[in-house]
Each structure stands twice: as structure tokens, then as C-alpha cells.
């Protein structure tokens, strides 16, 4: 499963970022392999919005497809 398949509100773990440049930039924003992320929005066919605590970043669709994720058990705060 990749980041492009994620749905609004789902929580998941970043497994692998298959692009060096993206990996470097994501690391700066606080998102690395193994990070726990929540999907805070997605535009049909467009970018995915990720949320980690109060930090939000938007990732374009093609880039999202290069990021593989695994699901985290659903839990509610």
C-alpha cells in the first residue's frame, strides 16, 4: 500500500520512501521511515495532506505513490 491509497483520518506508519530527494526533504519536515502519521485530507487525484501532531505537510500524488506505508491498528484518542 502506498500513501496515495490512504483515506482521510487514517493513521499509518511510513514504511519506505522510494526516492532519495523526497526522503531528504521529508526528513527535514519531520517525516521519516518509521514515522507515525495521520491523513488530514486528500484531494481526488491530487495531493495528500499528512499530519503529525500539529505539523501538516502536503505531498503531491506522484510522490505519494513512491511512499509505501503500513497500517496501524485503528485507535481513537
Amino acid at each position, binding site marked *: 500500500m502506498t500513501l496515495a491509497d490512504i483515506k482521510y483520518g487514517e493513521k499509518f506508519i511510513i514504511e519506505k520512501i522510494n526516492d*532519495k530527494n*523526497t*526522503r*531528504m*526533504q*521529508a*526528513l*527535514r*519536515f*519531520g517525516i*521519516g521511515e518509521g*514515522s507515525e502519521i495521520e491523513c*488530514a*485530507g486528500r*484531494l*481526488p*487525484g*491530487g*495531493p495528500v*495532506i499528512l499530519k*503529525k*501532531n*500539529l*505539523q*501538516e*505537510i*502536503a*505531498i*503531491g*500524488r*506522484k*510522490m505519494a505513490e513512491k511512499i509505501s506505508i503500513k497500517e496501524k491498528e485503528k485507535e481513537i*484518542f
Partner: protein
Amino acid sequence: MDQGSQINIDSNIEAEKKIVLAGNPNVGKSIFFNYLTGIYVSVSNYPGTTLDISSGRMGNYAVYDTPGVYGVGSINDEERVARDFIISADIIINVVDASHLERDLFLTQQLIDMDKRVIVALNMMDEAEKNNIEIDIKNLENKLGVPVVPTAAAKDRGLFELKEKIDSACRGNKIFSEDNKLNQLYKNVSTDTGSSPEAVMLLEEDESMVSKYGADYPKLREEIYTLRRKRVDMITAEIVSYNLTQNSFAASIAQYMVKPATGIPMLLALLFLIYQFIGVFVAQYVIEFTEGWFFMGYYEPFIRSVISSTLGLDNFIGNLLAGEFGVLTMSATYIFGLLMPLVAGFYLMLSILEDIGYLPRIAVLVDKFLQKIGLNGRAIIPMLLGFGCVTMATITTRLLGTNRERIIAIFLLGLAIPCSAQLGVIAGLIAKLDLFYVVVYVLTIFIIYVLAGTFLNKVLPGESSDLLIDLPPIRLPKILNVLKKTYQQTAAFVREAGPIFVLGAALITIMETTGFLNTVITFTSPLITDWLGLPAETTTAFIMGIIRRDFGAAGLTSISLTSDQITVSLITLTLFVPCIAAMMVMIKERSLKEAVYIWFGSWITAFITGGIVNLLIF
């Protein structure tokens, strides 16, 4: 306002020491800068960029404010400028947003790794408190090994404490110490370069360091970044506790902004407001005052009378200075009377949108559409700015990720985005026509924009970069910040584009005196009459469009044309070549070859489209 003398500085320091403010974008650095330096501040352009650096004094220290960055490196102009200042700093005040520590501490750790004396201003503590974020400041200090001062700069909290503690800035705990092999390598490279900050940049594969010291050094960016990220995550996990409450009002607005169903109507409403401000208020009332009343009414007649009584107006030099396209007359009126108010209006709007945190959300909304033409959401910034001044927008394309995106954006700007000066005249002409013609005009331009973008996206080699953008929280704009940004960007416009407009005007006078302009008019005339079905007089309007795009459209007002003819000529003129200043910027930013391609490309597209519309609507 003499705050500088309050701080205790060892009076033995003779040499001036540098304090550099560094931090992520939108963390409130400039408030610290203003507090520390007081009112005596100078702003200067950083060579080779459109960025300004503010500098001031605090006692024996020189204080510099740097552009906001997420890390030190060479990703964009901002980073390159920040990097140069950081490398040369004696003390770094690192401003971080307390609600975004996981993101901000990456830069903090990088500064510490670069062996700089650092003091951290843990800013926006008020927001963190509101969000129920608890931070163990003592422990954060221990982990980082540098002093941390909690502040809420916008509320004037903690600024004095920070200033008192600046001299306690020190070198912190580097990540290299966790790894023996890496530490040894870091030490060896530091000996080679004679500078620890440069050694870290070199190991992180920073372009400028690699070209300075050669490419034989180990490439460890990924390793270092990963290690740094792990350390920052570990620190934040230990010192920050989040008890996030329900979404605030601002957070729900932020949500609606990026949902298409609500976001697109919001965007359209906003564009309408921007149009009301720039297209109606600035373009009509302000311009009437600056261009019409001041420059045309007083300034130009004054210059002309001075020139005619000294050099005379009937010779080449007099003509060059104060003739129809005079450097002192037309250029000055055009740059300061017409374009500057419009560009300032645009930058004011953009700065407000940026300060609120809306701009990146627009980028998210339009990303899908822009992807189709080989750009990503970020390109919305030069595109919006193009409606102000294409010349300036062309320079702004530097923020795009790849060469390919820059070529596409620059071509589309030159081709299908009418600048504000032109838009004003177009609006005047089109207002006389039926709605049908307005629709034909707008639709044709839009279709050409999409087709040209799609075409370039297909034929240009390589791949465009994807969107990766930080979405800052939605906040109320800070007026001072907005005005400062507007001023800086407008000044950059005058500085960067001004000389080019002057050069363009000079070139046109030369072309006119040598008779070249007339040759072009005679040569292109058949194309205009036969293919576009327009009267021969319109040729002059078209040629004038080469000089200033609004000249072209303005030239049409004096010719009597049918509705069909007006529509065809407006479409052709809009798509027609970019103005001479935009052309020269293209040559400067890209190359002569590319600029010539773009020029002829626009020429051909304009005439083919105009001809087809002519055939279809007649």
C-alpha cells in the same frame, strides 16, 4: 530606543562579532530582529537573488536576519543565503516554533552539528500553551547542550530574557559524538577544510562546498539526515507531551480551505476580492493619480522642457532621453507611475495570503490541474504574480524545482498571462462587447494556456518535481510583517526589472531612428489583413505590443473595429510576444536561445490562434 547598551558585552572585544538569526519560515524571527536592533536597520539585497537581508547593531554586535529555511543547504536561494550567513556567524539565535518542534529542531540540531554557538528562542509558547502542549525546557537544554529561552515574541514575552542570555550561547551536543566512525571522519574533514561548519556542509553534499573542496569526500547526507532525524524524534518524544484538544476555529477553516467542495468557492471569492482591490482600486484610482496626474501631468512635461532647453529634442540623444519612448519620460512613468503601484498591490495581497498561511493551501488546491501542464502547485505563485507584471513573475520562477518547470512556466507567462497594464486596456475594450465575445476571449486564452502547457509537458525531456509543502497554521496577518515584505518585494521589482525597462525603451528608440520598426510593420502587414481579417492600421498596434503589451491594446482603441475584429485582435495581442522587458529577463534568466524560441513560439501561437478564431466566428 537604545536597547543595545543594556547588554553586558566584554568591552575588550575589538572586532565586530556577528549574531545571526536563523529559523524555519513563519516562526517570528523578524520580531526578535527588530527588538534586538532597534530602529537603525539597513536592508540590502543579497547579490544574485531577489532576497533582502536586514542588518542592524546591538552594542558591539552586528545582527543579521536570514530567510526562513527548514535546513541549511542549497535547495533554493533562501537556503544558500542562510547558509552563507550561518557559516560566518559567531552566535546564532535559533528561533523555533514551540508547537512544531519535531520540524524545527532538525535545523537546530544541524546548527549545533555545525559547531556554532547557539541559543534557542523557544517561540510561540502562547500558542503551544493554548494547544495544551507541555515542554520540559530544562531537559531540552540538557539534550541539546545549548541554552533555551521560552518566548512569545508577538506578545512581547521573553524577549528581554533572551537578550540577557545571548552571551551564554554555546556549542551543543553534536550527533557525530554518537558514532565513532562518523566522528573521526568529521574531525578529519574539519582539519582539511579548516572549518567545522564547512566540513558538515561538505559531508552533507552541499553543492557549493563540493565545488569548493572537490567531490572526493564521502557523501553522507542521507546517513547524517537520518541520524539527525532520529535524534530529534528521540528528544521530542522525551520532552514534549501533546494533549491536543478539539480542533480550533482556525484549524477548521484550514480544513475547509483544502477540500475542493469548499476550498474552490473560497478561492474564487478571494480572487474576486483581489480583483476588486487591484483591478478596480489600484488600476483605476491609484494609477489615475500616479500615472495620469503626477507623471504625465507634471513630471514628463518638466523633463521635456529641461531636455528641450538644454540638449534639444530633435536629436538622437534628446529623443533617447525624452522622446516618445524616452528613458527619462516613458520608462519612468511606466515603471513608477503604472507598474510599481500594480506590482505593490499584488505583493501586498500575496504577502497577506502568505502571512495568513493560505498561499500553500492554494498550491494544494491547484496542484492537480498544474500537474497536467507539467508544473506543480507551487507554480501558482509566479502565475498569480504574472497578472501583475510578467517580467517580475519570470524572475520568481526561480522558486520552481526543475529547469523543465521553469521553461514551461516562463513560456506560459509570456504567452497567455496578460499583465496588469495590458489587462486594464483589455478590460476597457472588452466592456463594449456582448457577453458572447467575452466568453470567446477568456475561453480561447484558457484553452491555449492548457494546450501549450500540455504540449511542453509532453515534448520536454525529464520529469517535473512533485509538490512537497509545509502547511503552516492559519493565523491572523501581522501588519508590520506584511508591509515589510511588500516593501522589500516591490523594491526588488524596481531594482531587478527597472533597468531592463530602461534598456528596452532605449532599444526601441534606436529601432525607430534606424527605420527598422517601419520595415517590420510593412513586412507583417499582409499577415494582419489577410489572415486575421483586420484593417492594416492594426499592424502598428501589434508592433507597439512588442514594446509594451498595453501599448498594443491601447493602439486598438483609436481604430474602428467590429466586435469580431476586436475579439480576434485582443486574443492575438494577448498571446503575442511578451514585452521587451520580459524578453530581456528571459534572456538573463534562461538563455538567448531559449528566449528566441519563446518569442517565436508566442508569435506563431498568437497568429495561428487568431486566424482560427477569425475563421470560426465569422
